[in-house]
């Protein structure tokens, strides 16, 4: 089995290397064949490993030890348990679909091979992250997915906006990663090991310690540091600012990395660390509050966005907030469950948005769409499924996971849970509103794209190298685009029905630890009476009606009275501006952090570089030599004297030092 485990990440890596270094040799078709083959192999193996794990065969061990020093082992190792296998299946399945979809989406792009190489490399990194059995490899995977994300956001590197966005993503993630690294450092320092199993074995010991410098309880410091890492990667408030901008990347990437897999790495990591987080109510409270803020406030921004991908991006932020809340409520399995259903329905929404974008010749502004359902029937149907799931309506997948989260948060007792419960409920209404606003805006109502085509305003910002312009009729996308959409929309409906096994059937076994004080989930298990029962019960509860009223509001505002939104916007004044400005985070960051960094940088450049290095060290020595250029011979004979003098001086200095230390010891 060990070979199989190894093959899972290595197959996509091989694909990435082949397409990356030999892309020209392989050609376009060759490149997508090798990468898709690599991911397909990885997917099939994941299924096999899943069956093996179901049969009770877990694995935890090293496959390669890089170095060992002072008891710290740096190694590549795998931990194969139900949690890992769930992630492997989700990652590989979505990745495979995105690979296929890319054939259609990137068909005309000159960077075709490079793109395939990157997404396969991403798959490799993500698999290394989820399969890791130690913190070092986790960190490696963590950084590697961040790197690929950076490369892909800036994939169209000639666009200044893309370069801005990828730099922003990189820098914001650095903030998170710094916290993450501090957390790992604390673990290494206090637990003396970086192996999950060894650290978890010492957890009760760690719980009694306090951090030496600050005097904080160690476990809280560790958990909060680790969670700061998760906040960066999973785009939690206030480190969320990079995710909406990351939409500058090609759409398949938005689906794969910035919705389905990479951004959920933080959620996965916290679940993996559940034995540690369970020991600190403070940390859990921090987690649940951050999640709650993200959920509600990011959903609100989604209402005012007009770029189709940005709506989906803010919706992703909100859904990640839900997962984080679940973590804070100690409902780790629910978080992973929502991670899974979300991966499917968000991939559908993103790839559907991509399909719309192809049909509109790379137009992303919803104000220039409308009435598209006639032209894009398959895309419409799949996106509708995605919207239903996103809004959390039964029987779609999102309903089961979102409802469970709300219930878990309701039952949670950590400080801040009440606030979180309120945010969760409010966000359900907003979720219904923005999901259906997207559908109605894009697919219903007046066909606005004809007039839009002549209006060049804002158009340049979003089109790429495609040559098409003018008012050609939108047409349904090719099979390579629609087939993945259809395949993904099946789990977007049905994956929620696994709720019985995943949440209440001991699916995760020992992979997740929950302290006795936090067993809200067990209460829920008592009230659970099958999928149908949950649906029947669901329609009588508040979240369902909130979602419905959100959808109805969207219908009223964008179908019945399309003139109303503008009026509301005018009336609400400041509120609308705040939302459109996204609470001013970007402005503040640009002004304070970017501006501040530039100021420090300028100071260092002027003071350090120009004065110290260039002035004193380079020009200084150069001007001394230059000034005495006429006396070259003299200098050269003089220099060896100086060299010798330096040596004699050195001897004298050492002598003084040595004798001083000898005599001071004697005296």
């Amino acid at each position, binding site marked *: 089995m060990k070979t199989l485990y190894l093959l899972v990440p290595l197959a996509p890596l091989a694909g990435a290397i082949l397409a990356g270094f030999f892309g020209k040799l392989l050609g376009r078709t060759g490149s997508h064949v090798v990468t898709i083959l690599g991911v397909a192999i990885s997917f099939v193996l994941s299924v096999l490993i899943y069956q093996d794990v179901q049969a009770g065969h877990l694995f935890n061990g090293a496959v390669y*030890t*890089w*170095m*060992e*020093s*002072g008891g710290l082992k740096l190694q590549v190792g795998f931990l194969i348990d139900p949690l890992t296998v769930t992630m492997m299946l989700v990652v590989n399945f979505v990745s495979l679909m995105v690979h296929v979809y890319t054939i259609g989406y990137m068909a005309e792009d000159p960077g075709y091979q490079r793109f395939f190489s990157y997404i396969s490399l991403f798959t490799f990194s993500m698999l290394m992250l989820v399969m890791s059995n130690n913190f070092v490899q986790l960190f490696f995977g963590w950084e590697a997915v961040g790197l690929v994300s950076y490369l892909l956001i800036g994939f169209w590197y000639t666009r200044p906006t893309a370069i801005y966005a990828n730099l922003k993503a990189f820098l914001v993630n650095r903030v998170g990663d710094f916290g993450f690294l501090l957390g790992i450092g604390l673990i290494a320092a206090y637990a003396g090991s970086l192996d999950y199993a060894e650290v978890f074995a010492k957890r009760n010991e760690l719980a009694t310690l306090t951090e030496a410098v600050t005097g904080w309880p160690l476990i809280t410091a560790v958990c909060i540091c680790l969670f700061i890492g998760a906040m960066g990667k999973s785009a939690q408030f206030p480190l969320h600012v990079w995710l909406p901008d990351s939409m500058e990347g090609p759409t398949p990437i938005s689906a794969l990395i910035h919705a389905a897999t990479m951004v959920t790495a933080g959620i996965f990591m916290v679940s993996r660390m559940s034995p540690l987080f369970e020991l600190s109510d403070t940390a859990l409270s921090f987690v649940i509050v951050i999640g709650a803020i993200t959920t509600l406030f990011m959903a609100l921004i989604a209402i005012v966005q007009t770029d189709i991908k940005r709506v989906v991006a803010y919706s992703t932020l909100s859904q990640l907030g839900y997962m984080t809340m679940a973590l804070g409520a100690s409902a780790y399995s629910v978080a992973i469950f929502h991670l899974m259903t979300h991966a499917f329905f968000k991939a559908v929404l993103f790839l559907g948005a991509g399909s719309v974008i192809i049909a509109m010749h790379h137009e992303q502004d919803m104000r220039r769409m409308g009435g598209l359902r006639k032209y894009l029937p398959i895309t419409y149907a799949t996106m509708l499924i995605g919207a239903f799931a996103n809004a959390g309506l039964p029987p779609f997948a999102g309903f089961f996971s979102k409802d469970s989260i709300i219930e878990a948060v309701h039952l949670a007792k950590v400080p801040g849970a009440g606030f979180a419960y309120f945010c969760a409920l409010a966000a359900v209404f907003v979720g219904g509103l923005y999901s259906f606003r997207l559908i109605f805006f894009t697919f219903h109502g007046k066909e606005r794209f004809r007039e839009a085509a002549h209006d060049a305003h804002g158009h340049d910002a979003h089109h790429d190298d495609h040559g098409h312009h003018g008012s050609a009729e939108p047409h349904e996308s090719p099979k390579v685009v629609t087939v993945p959409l259809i395949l993904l929309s099946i789990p977007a409906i049905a994956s929620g029905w696994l709720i019985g096994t995943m949440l209440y059937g001991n699916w995760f076994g020992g992979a997740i630890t929950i302290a006795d004080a936090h067993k809200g989930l067990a209460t829920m298990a008592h009230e659970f009476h099958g999928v149908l029962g949950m649906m029947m019960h669901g329609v009588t509860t508040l979240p369902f009606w909130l979602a419905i009223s959100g959808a109805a509001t969207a219908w009223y505002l964008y179908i019945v009275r399309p003139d109303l939104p503008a009026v509301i916007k005018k009336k609400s004044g400041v509120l609308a501006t705040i939302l459109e400005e996204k609470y001013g985070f970007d402005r503040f960051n640009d002004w304070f952090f970017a501006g501040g960094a530039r100021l420090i940088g300028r100071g260092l450049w002027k003071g350090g570089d120009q004065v110290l*290095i260039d002035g004193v*060290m*380079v020009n200084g*020595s150069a001007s001394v030599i230059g000034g005495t250029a006429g006396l070259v011979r003299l200098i*050269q004979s003089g220099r*060896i004297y*100086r*060299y*010798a003098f*330096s*040596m004699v*001086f*050195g*001897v004298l*200095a*050492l*002598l003084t*030092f*040595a*004798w001083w*230390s*000898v005599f001071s010891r*004697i005296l």
Partner: protein
Amino acid sequence: MLNNFVMPDLYPAAPEIFLLLMSFLVLFVDLVFGATHRWMAAMLTVITLIGCAAITLVTSDGQTTLTFSNMFVDDLLSDFLKLMTYLAVIMMLVYSRQYMADRGLDKGEFYVLVLYATLGMMVMISAANLLTVYLGLELMSLSLYGLVAIDRDNTRATEAAMKYFVLGALASGLLLYGMSMIYGATGSLEIGGIAQALYHGQAEKPVLVLGLVFLVAGIGFKLGLVPFHMWIPDVYHGAPTAVTMFIGSAPKLAAFAMALRLLVYGLFGLAVDWQQMLLIMAVLSIGLGNLAAIAQTNIKRMLAYSAISHMGYMVLGLMSGVVGGQIDPFTAINAYSSALYYTVAYVLMSLGAFGMVLLLSRAGYEAENLEDFKGLNKRSPWFAAVMLVIMFSMAGIPFFIGFFAKFAVLLAAIKAGYTTVAVIAVMFSLIGAFYYLRVVKLMYFDTPVDSAPIKAGMDLRFLLSLNGIAVAAFGLFPDAVMMVCTTTLMRSL
């Protein structure tokens, strides 16, 4: 009386004797065929070194054997260091074959001087007596002076040789003076005897410390530590690149052996004193080397300053063996093997870096400026990658041998309680990363100034590729080499 003469056991010194005999053959062959078949001397030199390696391997029994009236020692450490020396010299010869031929410098003298310098290093490595150390040192140094000046018409080279000679003589004088004082204080020239005398506390401390200072100065000169480093930039810059490569590789192994034999084997009792001295020199070297390298535009000069800083890092390991006056064998072996590992790693990287300079040079053209590396990726992606690996490794970036070497010495320093020093060293290695990464930037992001095709022979290409791969591979499997270093020292100390 002649009657008292006992024939010494020649067996432990078999490689040295073989090399000496073969050097006569090289001289002879060069005399007869030198005018027509220059390749014969080169070939014979390489064969000699391979033969030495074979003899060293065959005679290596892991035992410590003293011979020539306890003046010469053959132990695992000497075997290991000698093998590394042969390897470095062979690589140097292969790398520089074409370079020397293009400049008409591949004369018999070159090969003979290389062989005698190698012999000098071997004697230094196997020295068990202060006089043997001095003998080996002088044999090596005199040959190196000659090698630097081998291109007689080049004023820069002859000037460098002159400086090297004068300063080297001064350093030898200091060393010899130190030795005489140690002899005066302990009454013994044998390294083992000195250790005994110190152990029994029979020596006078002030005189000993005086001798120690001069000894450390001599060692500092050979290693190129601040403030005894002045010769390094000028000699590296002035000498023909092939000779620079020679000076920058194998002699570091011999200098390491000298430091180890004199300080650890001989004056271990004074460890607290010499550790302090080495500490100052290490910090100064790391600081000055890394800062000055930034300002260089000539890659040979840059690598010279880089060598100064690298030797500073190596010394961090050497000075961490004794903690607070307490002797713990485990800590000591860990620290000294980290220094040994650093030396070996540095030699490998240094050979690769100078090999790249040789690769880009051709008849009538010295690719010794940083500019010559501009756009290398467009001219040869593979060798740009090799240079990238070597530069990353020198900068101490993970997954290359240089990272692990730095890591090992820093760990040793921290364990010995020199945390502040370790932090300073890391800061300077961050600063130092700048000039290594600048080379990478030039190779990958700038447009080539020199667009001539690379004309190096297959032997150079092949070995240089292997060199680059080794730097990467030993970074992935660092334990293998570390284990060898630790075992060697464990069985030789």
